[in-house]
């Protein structure tokens, strides 16, 4: 057995591959002694990974990139040999905002362009009547949630920095804040959207997969320096995560996986709620309407586990679009180098795999990492660097 590894995670369904890898004994079978540490904030996970209290962590993909580039915080290069989840978020709004959007919608209610344009009309009407701007919450400044929410509303003509308030809220506070009217909507991962619907205080307006067909959500993050000194451990840990993802993706195993994940020291919510997410079969409104999507959350299928540097480039482009950083060729290269398909392939013992999948955003041209400036120039709404 190796020296004990300390791996941080946030209780969210997309930590599933990591949790199952440990609790199903896959890490032990690889000779790894893993101590999973449940954390309360992304800041804690990032800091403990940065200063070496954690060897690895379940981390927001954009935080791994921001940390590697030194954006907004100390620069600590991170590598991601495994993608813990593709998609998995949803945009949930209060019953009042849902009704307002549905009253304005011109088109299909699952079409993000139709809802975004309707939102723009709601925002304009509120401004005219002198009402307070709408408040939307997301989980972290460097998060897919932030970028998905911004991408969606900006497509309809809503400037996320000028027309609404966009605030950070820890996931456990989301539902309560929606209920007491502190926020009108949010973008968060599972299980929180389902909990809002179950409590009758929210409607799931969009699955994140409506906004982007294929978006890297969380990664298995390892400090680059440590990974280089312990290549063998990285391979074994990655292999255990790949096995766990394969286990979870077998529909016959979902109930068992959901039960393991539901334990209080892991995610700590009802197994049934977790299974809805894994199955991509979600109750989207308090009246019991069910919506199914095979793309709701991908843990191992469709090559979800293999990190794709094009995904990292897209996330970097959003940091530029929203003025969290400025564009540079060097930074782009560094961002793409965070996602390490080579390490994934080494763990699997196979050579090069198929080319990357398109990000598949519902608005704008197809993303090309070789022309970030050109890509961003096609969007009318963006933030000027201050």
């Amino acid at each position, binding site marked *: 057995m190796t020296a004990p590894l300390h791996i941080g995670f946030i209780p969210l369904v997309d930590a599933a591959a990591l949790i199952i890898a440990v609790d199903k004994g896959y890490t032990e079978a690889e000779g790894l002694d893993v101590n999973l540490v449940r954390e309360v*904030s992304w*800041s804690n996970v990032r800091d403990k990974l940065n200063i070496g209290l954690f060897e690895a962590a379940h981390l927001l993909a954009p935080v791994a990139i921001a940390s590697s580039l030194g954006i907004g*915080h100390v620069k600590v290069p991170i590598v991601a040999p495994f993608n813990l989840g593709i998609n998995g978020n949803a945009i949930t709004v209060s019953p009042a905002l849902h009704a307002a959007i549905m009253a304005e919608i011109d088109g299909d209610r699952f079409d993000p362009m139709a809802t975004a344009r309707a939102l723009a009309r709601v925002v304009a009407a509120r401004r005219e009547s002198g009402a307070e701007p709408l408040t939307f919450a997301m*989980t*972290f400044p460097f998060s897919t949630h932030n970028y998905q929410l911004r991408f969606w509303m900006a497509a309809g003509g809503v400037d996320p920095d000028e027309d609404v308030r966009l*605030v950070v809220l820890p996931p456990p506070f989301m539902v309560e804040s929606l209920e007491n009217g502190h926020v009108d909507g949010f973008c968060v991962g599972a299980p929180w959207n389902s909990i809002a619907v179950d409590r009758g205080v929210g409607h799931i307006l969009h699955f994140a997969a409506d906004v982007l067909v294929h978006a890297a959500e969380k990664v298995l993050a390892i400090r680059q320096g440590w990974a280089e000194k312990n290549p063998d451990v990285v391979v074994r840990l990655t292999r255990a995560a790949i096995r766990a993802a394969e286990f979870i993706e077998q529909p016959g195993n979902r109930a068992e996986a959901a039960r393991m994940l539901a334990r209080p020291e892991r995610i700590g919510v009802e197994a049934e709620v977790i299974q809805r997410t894994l199955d991509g079969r979600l109750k989207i409104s308090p009246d019991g309407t069910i919506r199914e999507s095979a793309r709701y959350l991908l843990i191992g299928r469709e090559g979800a586990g293999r990190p794709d540097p094009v995904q990292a480039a897209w996330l970097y482009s959003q940091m530029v679009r929203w003025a969290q950083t400025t564009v540079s060729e060097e930074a782009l290269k560094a961002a793409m180098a965070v996602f390490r398909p080579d390490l994934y392939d080494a763990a699997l013992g196979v050579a090069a795999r198929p080319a990357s999948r398109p990000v598949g955003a519902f608005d704008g041209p197809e993303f090309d990492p070789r022309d970030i400036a050109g890509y961003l120039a096609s969007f009318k709404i963006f933030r000027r660097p201050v």
Partner: protein
Amino acid sequence: MTAEQPPPKAEQAPKIVIVDESPIRAAILEEGLREAGYSSVVRISEMQSLLARIYALDPDIIVIDLENPSRDILEQMFQVSRAVRRPIAMFVDQSDAASIQASVDAGVSAYIVDGLKKERIKSILDLCVSRFNAFAKLQDELDRTKMALEERKVIDRAKGILMKLKGLTEEEAYVLLRSTAMREKKKIGEIAQSILTASELLK
């Protein structure tokens, strides 16, 4: 900057905000800061509209416990925004690994707005760490006292059972418990608990 200019406002009386859901710990920390001469200390225990309140207070230093999920809310301050001043995180300066380690162990984190001298920051952080540790020690003692009290109750009940069943005096019952514990290499509380369990089963 010329010599005549006064030092930045922050150097005179840095305004410190403590964000902590534990009112006792926050009070202990505030007391420590006041004793050290930091007179401008505000405590926030309510996490609702946290950022708005912090912006209104415009502090030089924000201290927050690491068990508080609201730490992520503070990260928003690093974003370019209309907010007045941008803080830097304690962990940004990695030159002092030992003090970072100490603060993580103690469970406290700090955000510092520009304008404070490094030595000053260090002394405030050290104080936070020692007060957080003092609180943890207090908590620990309290837990142990509670446990000891619980154990006393269990032992008293076990003594009562022995006295009744075997016609012993209280002292004899205690001696029996103690000698059994020694022979079995167990704690006296454990022996007492097994007597309670057994008597429940045999009821």
